């Protein structure tokens, strides 16, 4: 077999694999959307779910998903980015550093149900946060933090060392070089990582079953006082998210329109993640341009 033939075979295999991947993705998306889009209506999005009657909506679940996502990101992004910067820029190669790095790796590969059980033991029971938005966000922080650390460290390592040398050679301190040159330069790759992990967090269910709970109090969307028990902003109330809702209605739902609600919710979930990706990419491009000057 000559090298030209080998080359063709390799190329065909790679194209085939890419094609299979894209086909699976499209089929899955198409299936979810085709089945679900018909169930989505303004009423579906803006009405409360019902426990046993048909025609329930997903207003609270949708809100909860975004609220938990927001809190999780608020906790993980600053801590994770700082951790990643530490590992990439400050940590000296040695036992402690490689220990920290293996901890991050182990943490990143924990099954989410284990994170959920851990969250229940620590946040729900030990800290007495009960089934709450806060417990859920903290459990997801455990789940998401290593991803952000990894993404940041990789983003920094992918930068050319010439940038860092340039900053230092111009009489800037290490921290100033990181803050003004390296972090903006690594921003696009960090943002991509954050978006991807946000999608994972938004769709996570197992880690939330035992932390954020399976129910939501009757939320009063006119009451924005975080301390009141039925306020959407209250962090200490239980909060069923969209993906938990899909699981719940499918496994133990007694409403007659289980299929419609589940399909609609799944479609909304997928659409949210897609929109979120597109939006964040747009914003990322805009910020990057702001930081780096026009091309």
């Amino acid at each position, binding site marked *: 077999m000559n090298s030209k033939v080998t080359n063709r075979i390799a190329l065909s295999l790679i194209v085939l694999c890419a094609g299979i991947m894209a086909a699976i993705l499209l089929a899955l998306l198409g299936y979810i959307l085709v089945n679900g889009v018909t169930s989505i209506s303004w009423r579906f999005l803006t009405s409360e779910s019902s426990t046993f009657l048909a025609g329930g909506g997903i207003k609270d679940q949708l809100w909860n998903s975004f609220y938990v996502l927001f809190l999780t990101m608020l906790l993980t992004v600053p801590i994770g980015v700082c951790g990643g910067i530490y590992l990439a820029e400050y940590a*000296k*190669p040695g036992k402690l550093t490689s220990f920290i790095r293996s901890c991050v790796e182990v943490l990143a590969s924990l099954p989410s149900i284990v994170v959920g059980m851990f969250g229940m033991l620590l946040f729900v029971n030990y800290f007495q946060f009960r089934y709450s938005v806060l417990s859920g966000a903290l459990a997801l922080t455990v789940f998401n933090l290593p991803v952000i650390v990894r993404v940041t460290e990789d983003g920094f390592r992918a930068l*050319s*060392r*010439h*940038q*860092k*040398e*340039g*900053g*230092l*050679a*111009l*009489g*800037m*301190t290490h921290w*100033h070089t990181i803050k*003004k*040159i390296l972090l*903006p*330069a690594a921003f696009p790759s960090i943002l991509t990582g954050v978006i991807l992990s946000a999608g994972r967090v938004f769709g996570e269910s197992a880690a939330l079953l035992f932390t954020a709970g399976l129910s939501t109090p009757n939320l009063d969307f006119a009451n924005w006082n975080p301390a009141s028990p039925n306020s959407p902003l209250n962090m200490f109330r239980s909060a069923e998210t969209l993906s938990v809702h899909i699981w719940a209605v499918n496994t133990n739902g007694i409403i007659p329109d289980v299929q419609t609600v589940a399909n609609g919710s799944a479609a909304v979930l997928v659409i949210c993640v897609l929109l979120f990706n597109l939006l964040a990419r747009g914003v990322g491009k805009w910020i990057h341009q702001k*930081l*780096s*000057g*026009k*091309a």
Partner: protein
Amino acid sequence: MIQLETKVANFTKKDITEKPVQIHVDKVNIYYGTNHAVKDISMPIHEKSITALIGPSGCGKSTFIRTINRMNDLIPSARCEGTIEYKGANILNPKIDVVQLRKAIGMVFQQPNPFPKSIRENIQLPLKFAGVRNKKELQEITEDCLKYVGLWDEVKDRLDRSATGLSGGQQQRLCIARALALKPQVILLDEPTSALDPVSSSKIEELLLQLKEDYTVVIVTHNMQQAARIADYTAFFYQGELVEFGFTSDLFNHPEKKSTADYISGRFG
């Protein structure tokens, strides 16, 4: 070899008024782990002159130049001994303020490394960190430096565009400009033209000849003709040792050591 001789022939020892020594290098040894990369270097660096460091790859010339503004601190395994005296202090002293040192001794690298920011920011970012806050002053320095390196007319209308959109030669001149903005006394250049095309290289060479009127210039170069064309003093490094140091004309026309003669006549390297 003959060509080289004609090029430097009109440039003899007598024509150079010897400038005072600004940096005294005394018995400098540099190690990477157990690898003894630079061995017992002693040489003067004269102010407002161009000193070229030449030698084959891996001879320690880059390692040595990076020690003069302590850029080797970035490499954890690097270790230096000896003294490099500048303004009465030893640069190699661990207690020295490297931030101040690097402001006084600037550096330009082989690969043009503008920050992925606007042209204006590339010059003003280090200036702001150095404490220049006045907008008018920042603007003036930016303009002066860009004019000095001959870049002003090319970029004055696009100061807010990204510096990464400039050509390689323009990027390198921008890197020199932003180093000059900090008003250093010494400029170190580590093979500043080896990534550039011949036209851009000759522009940089002209700029270096202009620079030595106001600054002390130390340049590492692979290109012997470049050293012969622009340097007042040349140091030949080989296998971590300083084989020969002297006036460029002497070193190229009458090398004292055999390995110097072999290298400059192209027999190795």
